[in-house]
């Protein structure tokens, strides 16, 4: 029993972070039908901004609890600044174009964002664990764990249910559903699709940046984070079925479990686990666990 508790806790908390990396990608794909290769960059930008603001708070000896506000604020800041700007310039241009074009345009964006981060934040890694230390630790059955891990899980659960509420039970959510179902029809009855796209894309950016910000206290941020997160997000989104938010949550659990099991039993294979899981699932179910099968065009 004592061996299982840390395994479960590790799986849950790492699943939460993995989920944050992927949920925005899958949400954006669901609404915009664009696979955003630059998504991982929003995650790392969120992490850099959060680390900078937290470091500022600590250096000025402000109330350390402000760092929690800083985590949320930095994600919102990244979303408000980058979301509308990128959607209305680059992403909008790719609507209705082939997947190859969409992937390449966003890959170009990824390259640009990676270099911009390097120019602004430099190449050293940041580490800021104030929020984690403030929360302290507890123990279940003699196993000590960090409260921050549970905080991450709670945040992920809130996001899953929040998104569900937003999409199924709000006016905005119904508009989004209408646009997803039939873009032209929605336009013709007066839905401002451009506004919906900007909102959805910015929400995706926000979720990615939030994930990055929340990851700072546990693992810090270093160059290369964006590229690493990108493939992980791909794997999770693909396993869950592109565009499926609950699917992404389940896929994050699967990937986290595979990774934690690998770390416990075959440590040398921990980095292989997520991609191996993706490969196996996609070979059996190419549309992911929850993905809908689309018919071929004739």
């Amino acid at each position: 029993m004592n061996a299982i508790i840390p395994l479960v806790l590790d799986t849950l908390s790492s699943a939460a972070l993995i989920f944050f990396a992927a949920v925005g990608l899958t949400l954006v794909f669901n609404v915009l039908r664009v696979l955003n290769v630059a998504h991982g960059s929003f995650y790392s930008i969120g992490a850099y901004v959060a680390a900078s603001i937290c470091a500022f708070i600590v250096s000025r000896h402000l109330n350390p609890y402000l760092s929690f506000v800083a985590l949320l604020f930095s994600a919102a800041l990244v979303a408000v600044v980058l979301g509308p700007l990128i959607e209305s310039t680059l992403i909008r241009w790719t609507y209705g174009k082939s997947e190859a074009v969409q992937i390449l345009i966003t890959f170009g964006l990824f390259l640009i964002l990676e270099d911009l981060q390097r120019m602004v934040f430099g190449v050293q890694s940041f580490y800021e664990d104030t929020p984690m230390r403030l929360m302290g630790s507890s123990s279940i059955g003699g196993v000590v764990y960090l409260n921050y891990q549970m905080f991450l899980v709670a945040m992920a659960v809130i996001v899953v249910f929040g998104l569900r509420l937003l999409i199924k039970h709000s006016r905005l959510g119904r508009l989004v559903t209408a646009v997803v179902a039939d873009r032209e029809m929605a336009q013709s009855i007066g839905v401002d699709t451009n506004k919906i796209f900007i909102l959805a894309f910015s929400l995706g950016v926000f979720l990615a940046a939030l994930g990055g910000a929340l990851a700072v206290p546990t693992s810090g941020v270093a160059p290369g984070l964006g590229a690493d997160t990108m493939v992980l997000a791909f794997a999770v989104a693909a396993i869950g079925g592109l565009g499926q938010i609950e699917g992404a949550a389940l896929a994050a659990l699967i990937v986290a479990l595979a990774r934690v099991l690998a770390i416990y039993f075959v440590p040398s294979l921990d980095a292989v686990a997520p991609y191996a899981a993706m490969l196996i699932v996609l070979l059996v179910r190419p549309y992911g666990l929850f993905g809908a099968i689309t018919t071929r065009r004739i």
Partner: protein
Amino acid sequence: MRAILLIGAIFAIVVAPMAAPWLQFVLTMAIAKGLAALGVAVLLRAGMISIGHAMFFAASAYGVAFLARGGVSDFGLLLVLSVAITGLAGAVVGAFLIRYRAIFFAMLNLAVSMVFYALFAKLYGVTGGTDGMTIPVPTMFGIVLSEPTFKAILFYGSVALMVVVGLAVHRYLDSPLGHALSAVHTNEVRLEYLGVPVWAVLLVAYIVSAVLAGLGGAIAGFAIGRVVPDFAFWTASGHLVLVAVLGGIGGVPGAFIGAFFLELLHTEAAAFTDAWNLIVGAALIGVIMFLPKGLYGLLTRSEVSAK
């Protein structure tokens, strides 16, 4: 007109290192990447985008390293064997992946290449982990070569290979098999109704693309003298697609034009800026938006207007 331009360009490539010896390594790498990008371009003809072909690039370079460690030291043998192994790997991987289209094809290639990358980075005892493996200077017909001599032979061999392989791929794309590839892009079901086995068309294309990437990888491995797992990282695969699209996938020279353009620009730009990815990213977006046929499209368009 175009043929004269291309012959002139090849002549310029051959004589350039005589004037500026540092160009030899840059141009060898450009040819290596051009070959791999050509492989990606072959698949792009069928509308299939692979974000995983750096895996074959790396696999071939690792093949050379392993064979060299195992006692094979002849240059020709190393090249042929490692490319053959890569082609075989391409056949196996391709047999699974050609069933998928669009994003799913792209993502599965990504998944396979990342499994490859993670394995080679983690199995320290076998592959040297992230330190990679050294590739020693090979012998040629039993003659032991000094490093500068080998690098010179490698360069001229690569130029010859580029011409021969380029012509072969040109023939392939112009054959019924190659035209079927573009037809897959336009309308796959129509092709099936015509009785053309789409899977066979795509499998051949996949193997050809893997072999091309393998050729490039082996040359790059010889030129650098070392292979590291980063050869197979997904951004490297992305760069191969980038080179292909930048040059233009309309014809064989496109991939090489893209590769030469990027490598030379990189060498020049490195002197005064380190924001290289930013420049390349912006160039990629610019080319896709304003030059859908790539840099090679500029060349072919001017020919049409000249008539």
